[in-house]
């Protein structure tokens, strides 16, 4: 009598052998031919599958390049290096673009945002945004981190109630922009390592802003007088990023802003 355990091992081994042959045969029989160029493209992708390119994953983006001639510079994770490699594989010329990075258009942390009663509800921004009195400012960051939750690169964090991007880690995939129920994260072309940002989204009159926040933009227009790259609309200043150059210097406005809400964001 062979002990049961040995019998079991033999049976399993025999089965493994049979399946190995079957699989090997199937691999040859139903082989899908991937064009070499497409294979190279897939290998060039970083494999993060973050969706930042606008396609469902890395391989779908590779196929879009191969079949539809999609632009080579859509992968924000890979940045310039991957774009160049893709251009090389496809034999097209790649002109280095400007990377897009998110900026949070609120600059007030928990100590600067006023009228914040205790919130005991579901701890997500999407739920808190529906509660009218959750904080005085109805435009600003809620600090519950829906953006943090979706970032696959650990590149945005809540620091004392305010979302802050870590530009060393951020690849510009834009997931945080889509997650924010307040719509206060905006993608901006980073012409320089650090960019000036009016970190406030509040559209209420200055008097109202002062009642809810110690740093929010009051629409006083001082920045716009100093540099016409600023425009004031609905009591809120914004920067025209199409005109922003690598050497744009807004330090005068940054200095003069009475609320110190124009800030340099980036590396």
């Amino acid at each position: 009598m062979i002990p049961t355990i040995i019998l079991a091992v033999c049976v399993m081994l025999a089965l493994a052998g049979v399946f190995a042959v079957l699989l090997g045969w199937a691999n040859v029989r139903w082989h899908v031919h991937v064009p070499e160029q497409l294979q190279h493209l897939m290998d060039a992708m970083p494999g993060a599958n973050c969706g930042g390119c606008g396609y469902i994953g890395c391989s779908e983006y590779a196929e879009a390049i191969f079949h539809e001639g999609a632009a080579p510079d859509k992968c924000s994770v890979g940045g310039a290096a991957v774009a160049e490699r893709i251009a090389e594989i496809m034999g097209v010329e790649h002109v280095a673009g400007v990377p897009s990075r998110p900026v949070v258009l609120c600059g007030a942390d928990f100590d600067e945002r006023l009228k914040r009663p205790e919130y005991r509800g579901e701890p997500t921004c999407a739920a808190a945004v529906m509660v009218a009195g959750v904080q005085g400012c109805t435009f600003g960051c809620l600090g519950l981190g829906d953006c943090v939750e979706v970032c696959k690169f650990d590149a945005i964090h809540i620091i004392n109630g305010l979302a802050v991007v870590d530009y060393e880690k951020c690849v510009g995939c834009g997931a945080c922009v889509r997650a924010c129920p307040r719509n206060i994260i905006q993608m901006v072309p980073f012409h320089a390592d650090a960019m000036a940002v009016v970190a406030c989204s509040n559209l209420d009159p200055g008097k109202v802003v002062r009642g809810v926040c110690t740093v929010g933009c009051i629409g006083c227009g001082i920045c716009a007088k100093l540099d016409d790259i600023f425009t004031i609309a609905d009591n809120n200043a914004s920067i025209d990023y199409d005109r922003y150059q690598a050497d744009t210097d807004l330090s005068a406005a940054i200095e003069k802003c009475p609320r110190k809400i124009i800030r340099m964001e980036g590396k």
Partner: protein
Amino acid sequence: MTVADTIKIPGKRSFARGIHPSDKKSLCAGSPVEILPTPKSVLIPLSQHIGAPCAAIVKPRTEIAIGDVVGDSEAFVSAPVHASVGGTTSAATVTTLPNGQHVGAIPITVAEEQPLASQGLWDDIYGGNWPTDSIESLDPKQITQAVRTGGIVGMGGATFPTHVKFARNPDKPIDTLIINGCECEPYLTSDHRLMLEAPEPIIAGALLSARAAGAERIIVAIEDNKPDAIEKMQSAATGTGIDIVGVHTLYPMGGEKQLIVAVMAREVPTGGLPLDVGVVVVNVATAAAVARAVLRNKPLTHRIISVTGEGVATPKNILAPVGTSYADIIEHCGGLTDSADRVISGGPMMGFALGDLDVPVTKGTSGIVVLTEAQTRKSAETACVRCGRCVSACPLGLVPTRIALAARNKDWEMAKRYYITACVECGCCAYVCPAEIPLVQLIRAGKAGLPRD
């Protein structure tokens, strides 16, 4: 068995599921409506309704009289807002209403001399005679126009512009008008007091509304926990052909969909409106406002508010001008007690918790309920225990736990498959959940997060 129970209606006076929360109405059901001394200033929000917000039509620093138009809009689904006091306007500002609407608002500094105050104000709004004999000769379009001009919106809390409900649609004729006197939210007693103290304008408003909408039958539905209101309304309705019907005390009986089932045995389809089943539902306070707008040419400027709950020093029913700050009203009721923990605009089931008391009363403010710490403290959320209590509470027959958890996980396919948009946010599910899952909050947030397609 009272007369109200013998009147023949198609419905069974009840609907399936629902809950029986402790109603707490005794706190102020017995207090007659008190007229709030005119506040020093009011803030008139430019949008107090569902629909397009109004644009301000008054300039800053101008004298304005009670009833003057402050803001109006061209849009059909909208309603003008009026000055609720006489005084001087200041520059427009903004305010965040308890329901989350962030809207423009016009501050008015109240003049020393008010032509209407205390008893005179009450008589102007609810007192005196409400002749109903000439109503049959009025043109329905004229009534609807007067209702729009008067800025009448649903005063039960939903604030849907009333003239929109009356606009006739030849494809969807209305046969029945239900006047909603259920007031199913715990604590609230403002509609109850109105039915006791001023049944005549409600009856007149009911006849006018039916004439405007083209309804043949008028049924006033009142929950059977208010026998005194049923009696008062019956004697006021004598000879008018209006039926006063008692319905079971069951939350959310006052929800339009549930009330139509209970009274008419008709189901409003998901995503549909009462007019799809030939019914218009109008709240009792709205009906009284309709009567005032049509018969007296006066806009909606004041409303009755129940200021109640264990966290208020002296619970009262108050007649206050629109735009009064919640803080002033609470002050008038003796302020908050030491144990007060949460102030809610509206009832405890569907109302909105306030973060700031300096918000203005709107046309839809039915109550201010203050709960104590002991009532609001809750234990930590645990996992769903699959008890199914939310399923047996949901008046819509949904599976709240499935929808809520799908919404939390952003599984929109699942949420839609379980009809997330059919939820009326009555809160029955969260009320019964032993695992303390904030079901209705998750569903609300989920509805807002649903990808648009």
